């Protein structure tokens, strides 16, 4: 808790005693609250045989059927994300490169307009557009929504990375006779992507989370499968199914978030270390401001 430590002094004997008392009181309160909830759940029969849906389900189904369907759901969720993520990354990098490298003002302006429009719309509206206007399959509607929105966000992240580079990088490229486009491609882009890698990884979490919107456009992903199982077995079995499904979602997302945080930490260390070259050092310092997505410790943007 290094950030908390600046707000209060290193506690003396009296403060220590007070803190210990408060810690004990609040721990007791929390334990009591949790115990009360557990008891309330028990009273409503949450811990009865309904968990058998995961081991020995009713209605002549086997556990393999239930888990198999959940597994299909995970695969559907992940496959939408796996198709959408590289496409969004490619589009985002393309748009931000064009925006930086093109010589014509109108062309650059149109890239700005495209990113702002795609960023300002709800993902679900984009999915509905693909589903009900273009008449696409649910899978491709989900991918469409994810790609358009996250492509725009990636473009914005890479733009912030490019803007944070020291001017000398661009000037050096131009002064050895590269065109603006080649300067962007060869000199600036690799550095910007490296700096923005944590933000790009945490955007993956957002993409993964948004794939659950497929539930609403009737794509057979994890959430929809949970609902189907619940409709088949009955409302009683909702809780075990939900605990499993939510556990899967949250575990995957926490793992990817952790990856983003560790990348960011590694990058901060490598730019501060004595071994790194002068260029990387300046890049590392200028990277954080100007980008809303990069700041908060690999926080996925809602």
């Amino acid at each position, binding site marked *: 808790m290094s950030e908390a430590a600046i707000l209060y002094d290193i506690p003396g004997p009296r403060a220590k005693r007070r*803190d210990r008392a408060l810690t004990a009181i609040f721990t007791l309160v929390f334990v009591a609250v949790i115990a009360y909830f557990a008891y309330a759940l028990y009273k409503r029969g949450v811990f009865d045989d309904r968990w058998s849906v995961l081991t020995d389900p009713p209605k002549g189904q086997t556990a393999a059927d239930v888990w198999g369907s959940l597994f299909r759901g995970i695969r559907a969720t992940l496959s939408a994300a796996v198709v959408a993520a590289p496409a969004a990354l490619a589009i985002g990098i393309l748009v931000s490169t064009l925006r930086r490298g093109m010589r014509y003002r109108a062309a650059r302006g149109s890239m700005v307009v495209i990113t702002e429009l795609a960023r300002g719309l709800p993902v679900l*509206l984009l999915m509905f557009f693909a589903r009900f206007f273009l008449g696409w399959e649910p899978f491709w509607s989900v991918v469409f929504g994810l790609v358009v929105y996250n492509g725009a966000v990636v473009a914005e992240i890479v733009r912030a990375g490019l803007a944070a580079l020291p001017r000398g990088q661009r000037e050096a490229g131009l002064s050895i006779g590269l065109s603006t486009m080649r300067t962007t491609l060869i000199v600036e882009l690799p550095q910007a992507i490296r700096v923005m890698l944590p933000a790009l990884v945490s955007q993956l979490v957002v993409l993964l989370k948004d794939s659950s919107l497929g539930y609403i456009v009737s794509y057979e992903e994890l959430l929809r499968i949970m609902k189907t199982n619940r409709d088949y077995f009955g409302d009683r079995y909702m809780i075990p199914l939900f605990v499993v499904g939510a556990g899967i*979602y949250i575990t995957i997302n926490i793992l990817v978030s952790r990856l983003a945080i560790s990348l960011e930490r590694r990058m901060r260390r490598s730019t501060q270390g004595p071994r790194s070259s002068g260029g990387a050092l300046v890049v590392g310092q200028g990277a954080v401001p100007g980008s809303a997505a990069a700041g908060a410790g690999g926080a996925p943007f809602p």
Partner: protein
Amino acid sequence: METFIEEFGLVWGGFLATISLASVSGALALIWGTVLAAFRVSPIGPLRTFGTVYVEIVRNTPLTLMFFFWVFVVPSLGFVPHLGFQTAVISLSLYTSSFVCEALRSGVNAVGVGQAEAARSIGLGFGQTLTQVVLPQAWRTSIPPLISVLIALVKNTSVAAGFAFAEMVAISKRLTNLHSADAFFIFFGIGVMYLLITIPLGILASRVERRVAFAR
């Protein structure tokens, strides 16, 4: 195009529904998020743990899953919130509060160590240091990310369309079912209505960001 104009009453209703959902849950999320942020920097261990665990879990939960929880799971426990506006407000404010907390906390971290030290050295306690010295400064740094969180909230209200609340995206689906020939203009119009909210907010955020950057 004509249907969009003819049915504008319906669209306007959806627009107002989106706005009211966003403002009610935004206000609640700001309050609860501030409390969580105070928990996360407080000297009391259990509160800190609670804040950290809450934010870590909720931030990594898909919003659709949160809606699903309040619409399908909680009623099976015997507590039945009103479907529609009420479940939407609960889900959106619980979800958004974790992002509000993170935005505020990064603001607190951005306040110089010397500020808190100076406050302590003139004898202010934890509460006074936080409310009189650190938070007023943290608040300013936090405004641009907070506006971004609110923009995301406006767009996130659309998830309520899948859970029986007639906001703008739900209206767009209803209208395209009725007038499928005009689907393009209906989506176009609804998209413009969203941009009318999100783009001015985005411009505001970047203005504020520039002013704060000068002040530092």
